[in-house]
């Protein structure tokens, strides 16, 4: 049935777009994994923290006002300013860099040469901490994030497709923006890791901390660098997702949508993050579209994982991940 085909196409297109949104989160994971072999569980919380900070700065919220009020019995709320979005974004970017520096100083520095699972665990600790810290700093109410991104159906596409097929496709403007941003990010980051000596250093660090140290690669510098970039990627993800659903705790759970993407694309591949996102996004939407109704729906969560799992059985390192070296 042609109508069914149209619907499926629309679902697939939207899936691709949703996939891009997942990729934005996955990208942060990839960067850090690539540079240090750390599976950064805190990436989702970092996105939340970035978004909270952005809104806080933009609307002039006084940080920790709740705590201060509780201790001193004051009644502080806002500084009373409204900053332009761009200024707030830049300031938040700086905060994320500061955060990267602190994380390196306080946590990573002491965990050089530890097993990956220990580092993973440390990032979970970090996630806990940041979650509490973010809430304490900015409060746990829902915040509206408004940096002027367009949202809602794209009229042009709707009209054009309607004229062509008699059925207007729904594509969200926000998704289009996200796609453009993600494309740019992937491009820049790929170039960075491919063509600079830092790119090589990143991969060296991921392979062997000690050896990297021994050739004079400063782990501290590399880590601050990638965690800063990952922080900024988290900010971008936070902005996109925050615009979609408001800024509050659940934002940190988008990490779970990024994991299958990561797995499918390969933990170490920047382009993998985007390709994986596209496949996952489209796959889960199409599955939900065709099979979902038969088995009761809400299949997206597990389907993404199962899809990735099936891929992995054939390519254990993901689509573009580095081959896992097995030798004796």
């Amino acid at each position, binding site marked *: 049935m042609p109508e069914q085909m149209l619907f499926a196409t629309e679902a697939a297109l939207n899936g691709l777009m949703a996939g891009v949104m997942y990729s934005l989160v996955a990208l942060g994971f990839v960067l850090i994994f690539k540079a240090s072999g750390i599976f950064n569980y805190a990436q989702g919380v970092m996105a939340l923290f970035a978004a909270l900070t952005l809104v806080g700065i933009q609307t002039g919220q006084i940080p920790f006002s709740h705590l201060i009020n509780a201790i001193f019995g004051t009644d502080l709320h806002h500084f009373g300013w409204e900053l332009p979005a761009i200024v707030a974004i830049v300031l938040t970017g700086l905060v994320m860099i500061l955060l990267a520096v602190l994380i390196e100083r306080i946590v990573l520095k002491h965990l*050089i*040469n530890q097993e990956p699972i220990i580092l993973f665990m440390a990032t979970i600790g970090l996630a806990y901490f940041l979650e509490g810290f973010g809430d304490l700093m900015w409060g746990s109410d829902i915040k509206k994030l408004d940096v002027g991104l367009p949202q809602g159906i794209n009229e042009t596409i709707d009209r054009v497709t309607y004229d062509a097929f008699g059925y207007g496709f729904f594509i969200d403007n926000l998704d289009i923006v996200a796609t453009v941003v993600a494309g740019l990010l992937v491009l820049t980051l790929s170039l960075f890791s491919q063509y600079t*000596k830092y790119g*090589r*250093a990143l*991969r*060296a660090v*991921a*392979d*062997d*901390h*000690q*050896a*990297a*140290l*021994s*050739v*004079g*690669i*400063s*782990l*501290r*510098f590399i880590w601050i660098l990638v965690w800063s970039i990952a922080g900024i990627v988290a900010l971008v993800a936070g902005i996109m997702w925050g615009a979609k659903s408001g800024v509050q705790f659940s934002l940190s759970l988008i990490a779970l949508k990024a994991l299958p993407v990561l797995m499918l694309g390969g933990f170490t591949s920047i382009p993998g993050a985007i390709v994986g996102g596209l496949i996952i996004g489209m796959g889960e939407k199409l599955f939900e579209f065709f099979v979902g109704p038969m088995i009761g729906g809400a299949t997206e969560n597990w389907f993404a994982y199962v899809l990735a799992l099936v891929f992995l059985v054939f390519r254990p390192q993901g689509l573009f991940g*580095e*081959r896992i*070296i097995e*030798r004796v």
Partner: protein
Amino acid sequence: MLDAGRTETLLEVNNIEVIYNHVILVLKGVSLTVPKGGITALLGGNGAGKTTTLKAISSLLRSERGEVTKGSILYRGQRVQDLDPAELVRMGVIQVMEGRHCFEHLTIEENLLTGAYTRSDKGQIAADLEMVYSYFPRLKERRRSQAGYTSGGEQQMCAIGRALMSRPETILLDEPSMGLAPQLVEQIFEIVRAVNENEGVTFLLAEQNTNVALRYAHYGYILESGRVVMDGPAAELRENPDVKEFYLGMSDKGRKSYREVRSYRRRKRWLG
């Protein structure tokens, strides 16, 4: 040959103690001096503490949960034991770690290039790369292979080549001969000597192959269970009867056969 007394001391290790995991005491007061422009050998049996000494110097101990608890390490008269390993590399000290430690996902060439991480002179780096390839033609053949898939000896070459790429002032070599074919062992030591003589690079090498090491080194220290038990100019050590017996495997009648060893059981036990 260099005379330790006459030249400037580059590296000085004063009576250091090293503890792993807060409980395992490994070095019990090791002191040594490395003269500028010399080749100093660190000899001793398994577990004597050679690797630990080198790691203490290059600040890599901390990443193994080891710690220098006493004594001091001075490089060019400056205390270096709290420095970041990367800073030490920038000061000109680089270590070739025991057990190769190549970046296995990087190709051989990329491995070599990371050696030049601290440098920015592009043209010179390319020239040095060619130099390393000329030392180790085998590496050139395998330059595009991921290091993880190369043979043990190839990895060892890669590790040494990588250190050379950083144009250091001092190289700490941990068991450079391990796993290398005999003619390569000679070759490596020839390279060491050449680099030392032509470019004035200082070497401190831990080596089990006492025979070769003492032929190329100027001065030697012998470590036994965390202590320096003997030191002296290499030529003297080579002539020392104990060294001859236990480290060089020479008996009065020249080299003894490994098959004969069976008949006499570990005499050293009684010798103490």
